[in-house]
């Protein structure tokens, strides 16, 4: 892969949380304008990877590097990363008292773009009447997730990290999510899609399998899904190694 095709490089990334080693030498390369899925079971380190890439407080690597467009960002703040064009859609998005959807969607825009805000809402299949609603407890979990996705879309990020965008949304709207992700990629964004559901990975151009804080495979989404289906289930390390050996035999 040419250097300028690599928008994100994660090199030997180690992260400890509350005394537990969560990420254990993650290596990951993501191509520009691609949809790259990171697939893994609950507890495998997916969300920790997402928060670490975004620069969230408490997710400071003890070792390793994160390069974004060739620049080292490992010690940069979350704001700095946001300004560089990286953003994150949280698995369980925050709620804001008194903040309208319209204002929320426009917050990440470098230049105010009302048309883009409307398009973002439309992309997640919500009516214009939502613009005047508050991003608070009055929204259902599914509505809030859609608005989070819309906020990412409205921002036109260079790199969008989506942590389990499908969780809490009915399966019928998986197609909607896929469309938004494809639109983002078509418009020049790169999407890092984090999920534990292999059907979501079908959206991706490339995929990586994360297991116990390590990327154990990267490549064609079908092959990664196949390995995920065959090998991954909640396990202790010894069982995992045994199944890995079995998989290699296959």
């Amino acid at each position, binding site marked *: 892969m040419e250097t300028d095709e690599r928008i994100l490089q994660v090199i030997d990334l180690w992260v400890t949380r509350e005394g537990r080693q969560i990420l254990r030498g993650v290596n990951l390369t993501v191509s520009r304008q691609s949809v790259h899925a990171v697939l893994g079971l609950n507890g495998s380190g997916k969300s920790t990877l997402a928060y670490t890439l*975004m620069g*969230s*407080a408490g997710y400071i690597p003890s070792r390793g590097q994160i390069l974004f467009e060739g620049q080292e960002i490992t010690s940069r*703040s*979350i*704001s700095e*990363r*946001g*300004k560089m064009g*990286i*953003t*994150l859609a*949280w698995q369980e*998005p*925050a*709620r*804001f*008292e*008194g*903040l309208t959807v319209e204002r929320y969607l426009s*917050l*990440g825009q*470098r230049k105010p773009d009302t048309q883009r805000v409307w398009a973002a809402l439309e992309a997640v299949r919500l009516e214009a009447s939502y613009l005047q609603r508050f991003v608070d407890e009055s929204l259902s979990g599914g509505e809030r997730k859609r608005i989070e996705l819309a*906020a990412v879309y409205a*921002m036109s990020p260079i790199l969008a990290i989506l942590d389990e965008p499908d969780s809490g949304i009915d399966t019928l709207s998986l197609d909607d999510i896929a469309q938004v992700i494809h639109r983002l990629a078509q418009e020049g964004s790169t999407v890092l899609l984090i999920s534990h559901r292999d059907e979501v990975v079908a959206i991706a151009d490339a995929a990586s399998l994360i297991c116990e804080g390590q990327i154990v495979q990267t490549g064609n989404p079908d092959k990664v899904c196949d390995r995920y289906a065959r090998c991954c289930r909640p396990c202790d390390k010894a069982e995992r190694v045994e199944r890995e050996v079995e998989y290699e035999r296959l």
Partner: protein
Amino acid sequence: MSDFEQILQAYEESGGDPKFLKSPKVASLVVSGNQVIGANSIPGLTMTAEQLPDGVKAQVAVDAGVRIELPVHLCFGVLPAEGIQRILSEFEIGAGASVEFIAHCTFPNATHVQHIMEGKIHVGEGATMRYKETHYHGQTGGVEVLPKARVTVAKGGRYASTFGLSRGRAGKVDFDYEVDVAEDGVAELDAKVMGYGDDEIIVRETIRLNGERARGLAKSRIAVRDQARSEVFGTTEGNAPFARGHVDCVEIVRDQAIARATPLVRVTNEQAQVTHEAAIGTVDKKQLETLMARGLDEEAGVEVIIRGMLGD
């Protein structure tokens, strides 16, 4: 520039629209210091005001069954840097009437101004009264505001008040509202105040649910920073069967500021239910990081969160 023009200018700077104070179709009252410089009654609503040595005594009456379509605009201000303004008011909302008041209190040049409001309010049977009061105090913190109201809500009546002070320095605020609610009546108190520098904020909200099925919400949203202090006393009493009440207090604290909350719930009837929640702390980390992940600086993110909470 005349007193009226000056107060209109201050009114506009505090977020009001002067056209409402000039329109004959809109009931309004304009008071500068102890001078009544405008009072407009409309059919169904009578407004009288008399001058006191240090303020004004005003009476507002809405006839029974009358629905006042356009909000009534009230403007109270002190333009000099020093002074006292005492507003003694009585509101009588007739049975089945409906009215909304929008009050702007503006003290743009204050270095030593005391603003005292003592209100006596009666909301008649089946009547509705909404009262929204917004303050602008300038940047010196030299204002002492003492809003005090005693409210009675008759059977099936509704009373809702919002007190907002989030532009300029709060100065010293001692907000004290008490509401007694009869059968099937509803009361909502909502105070939103931001303090910084050495501002001192006290909010006392008391709702007594005395009638069957009466409902009440005592809500407060306070943000303090620097060396500011805030203290909230939210009290709701359930004194009748099926009365339902809630006390809801959120205070955001930054820098060396100190916030206290004392939610008090008192139930004297076994079929009544009153709940409370109080949260004091710094800005929610997840909210802030969400905004920072959109490229906002930390300070800008905090501002968005606090302004949202204060309804700005």
